[in-house]
């Protein structure tokens, strides 16, 4: 497992957030899934924007977010 910090990426088509720590279990991506391990033809589940048009962000979460984080539950 990589020691690299977990990343967050934002869809530039709609603002949808992918957080490596959270994954997208409802879309078949378990928590901890690295961005690099998501297929290149993957697209934003909300708006269809291609993976290459996501931007890595280093923006903190608002208070109380994310509502469920597996890292907290562990």
């Amino acid at each position: 497992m990589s020691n690299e910090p977990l990343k967050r990426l934002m869809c530039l088509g709609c603002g949808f957030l992918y957080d490596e720590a959270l994954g997208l279990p409802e879309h078949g991506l378990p928590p901890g899934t690295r961005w690099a391990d998501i297929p290149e033809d993957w697209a934003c589940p909300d708006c269809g924007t291609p993976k290459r048009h996501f931007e890595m962000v280093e923006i903190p979460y608002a208070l109380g977010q994310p509502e469920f984080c597996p890292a907290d539950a562990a």
Partner: protein
Amino acid sequence: MRSANPNSARPMPPNAFQPIQTIKEMLMNSSFVMRASERGYNRFLSTGAASSYIGGHPDSILTRHSSFNFGPYQAGRPGFGRLRVFGDETFSGAGCGYNIHPHHNFIICAFVLECQLTHINTVGNIDQLTPGDFYAFSAGSGGKHCEVNLKQDDLHVIYIWMMPDQLLLPPLYSRSHFDALSSRNKLVTLVGNVDGGVRVSQDVKVSRLVSDKSITLEYVPTSAVHGVYASVLEGTVDCAGTPLERRDSTGIWGAERIPLRTSAQETDLLIVETAA
């Protein structure tokens, strides 16, 4: 500044190495002049491939001039500071617009220039905006909106999207009005942390100047690390020595003050200041 010559005989001081900026970051923090014709251009029909996205009568056409990469336009600049979208859009035909669709995080501002915009969102607003009206919709943890022209005339709107300063904030909608008559020949801040401004959760300020005579003033950025993106909506403006025509724009970083001079004719200038 990093040493330009890696073979320089002079030893580098221990703290001289800065992280190498990505091309994207450099493009978002460098100055430029963009002529109206250099912007991206997309045209969407309410029929065919985009029909679930674009609403309206079969003859509806939505056109978008993009200052930065957005949607199908990806051949330009990635953004400017915290800005990612600056769209100069026209909705032609009654019912033309964006069907209700989801957003997160982005703070979306709309400035109505002509006709009437009907905006519906999941924060609970059904709003109708006419020239001078503007809104800020912070999608935060999730919100949907619909943008539609219910009139026969063309609707002209400027859309500005900015990154938030926190992720998944509670969604929020605010609207206000710019009175071009009482604010004539004055620079007014519409969005930002100032008296009378619509507050957004980001270090960005949007100001507007409508003049009917030649006005000379200096725009003073908040700090040396704030950038200023100035877009001429109508008329002509001399901005820091660069003549800008209608829908030309310029992005400026690192200026202590930016001298502006509007033409004697009716001029409309929109200025967006952003942290790096």
